[in-house]
């Protein structure tokens, strides 16, 4: 195992139409750690997360996963990453089960029955209903169910709790804690306070 952390960010900077969102950003994250990205709206939280996933190109700096640059790793890096962004990334015309089957087909399937996953996110009854008929909260839960049905080390979550009720928020907070305890990694943005044991929680504020 190379001595550097699993995820290494060196001197990252991002400019959006003449405004410098962040500059010379360097940090590292290892297994069993969560990075909470805070900052007022428009401070570049989403841009940072999209750069971490490799979807967006940074204006300068690079990102290393297990010592290798993510641009060179390509699909191998993506296999280790699970990203839930503003969009839920699910098809309205397909049913919940069909959506989850697609998620598994596109990633590294976790040893779990799809019905059990639906059960955990309280969507078992909606297995065969097209997603178009679900509420925003239910759609978000289905989007987050991607974390249960595929195996990935690094979770990158952009406002995962939007349109979730208290009960679901607690449930998913538990899922994140479980992931951290199994040496997984989470990078997320959230307006809700995260209650996490001290050493495994790192904070990054983009607006100061």
């Amino acid at each position, binding site marked *: 195992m190379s001595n550097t952390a699993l995820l290494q960010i060196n001197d990252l900077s991002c400019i959006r139409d003449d405004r410098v969102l962040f500059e010379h950003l360097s940090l590292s994250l290892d297994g069993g750690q969560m990075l909470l990205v805070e900052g007022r709206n428009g401070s570049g939280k989403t841009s940072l997360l999209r750069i971490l996933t490799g979807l967006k190109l940074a204006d300068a700096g690079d990102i290393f996963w297990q010592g290798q640059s993510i641009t060179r790793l390509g699909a191998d890096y993506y296999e280790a990453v699970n*990203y839930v962004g503003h969009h839920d990334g699910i098809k309205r015309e*397909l049913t919940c089960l069909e959506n989850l089957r697609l*998620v598994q087909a596109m990633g590294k399937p976790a040893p779990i029955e799809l019905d059990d996953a639906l059960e955990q996110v309280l969507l078992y009854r909606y297995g065969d209903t097209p997603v178009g008929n679900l509420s925003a909260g239910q759609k978000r839960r289905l989007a987050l169910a991607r974390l249960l049905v595929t195996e990935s080390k690094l979770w990158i979550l952009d406002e995962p709790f939007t349109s979730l009720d208290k009960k679901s928020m607690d449930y998913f907070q538990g899922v994140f804690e479980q992931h951290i305890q199994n040496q997984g990694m989470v990078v997320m943005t959230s307006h809700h306070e995260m209650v996490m044991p001290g050493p495994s929680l790192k904070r990054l504020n983009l607006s100061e």
Partner: protein
Amino acid sequence: MNRLSLTQAFIFLLRRDLTLVFRNRGELANPLLFFILVITLFPLAIGAIPELLARIAPGIIWVAALLAAMLSLDSIFRSDFDDGSLEQLLLSAHPMPVLVLAKVCAHWLVTGLPLLIMAPVLAEMLGMASEAQGILLLTILIGTPVLSLIGAIGVALTIGLRKGGIILSLLVLPLYVPVLIFAASAIENAALGLDVSAQINMLLAFLFLALSLSPWATAAALKMSMS
């Protein structure tokens, strides 16, 4: 459990796209209706002189097929782009060009194939010589996949734009010229009973060139548009 093999992922995505299309069947007919509509305009515009129509039938049918294909290109990535599943495809464990190929195949099955079925009817309406109709089908069978493959590059480049439509045609139509030239002249030769193997071979060459190069260009363009 490890991830699916490439062919499994390809087939899975292809099946998913086809089920998606059959879930809203309404749109399925659009390219076809456009194809028929454009062709019926010509006799109205040029007059129904049989020899004239028969002579220009290959050109009309192929221009109409080309325009119908181009108009339907937007549907390849549009819905996935809007609901965020295109992002998830880009971040999938499988190489993007293969997934792009699956989506382009789905698009061809939904738009190219119906043109194939409809073309003989229209060729008959335009009074095209029957020997030529066989070759017409062959050129559409080989040509329309090329239109979808090259068109996918244009769509991927313009997907992020608010008004991508016009730019798409400006980018894509010049690249369609070689296919149009060889397809139309193949049918013309067939109508005169001449040999068409040269043209057909060229169309096949375009098909293999497009099959091997355009998925990579489309994947790069998608990655760039999502950036």
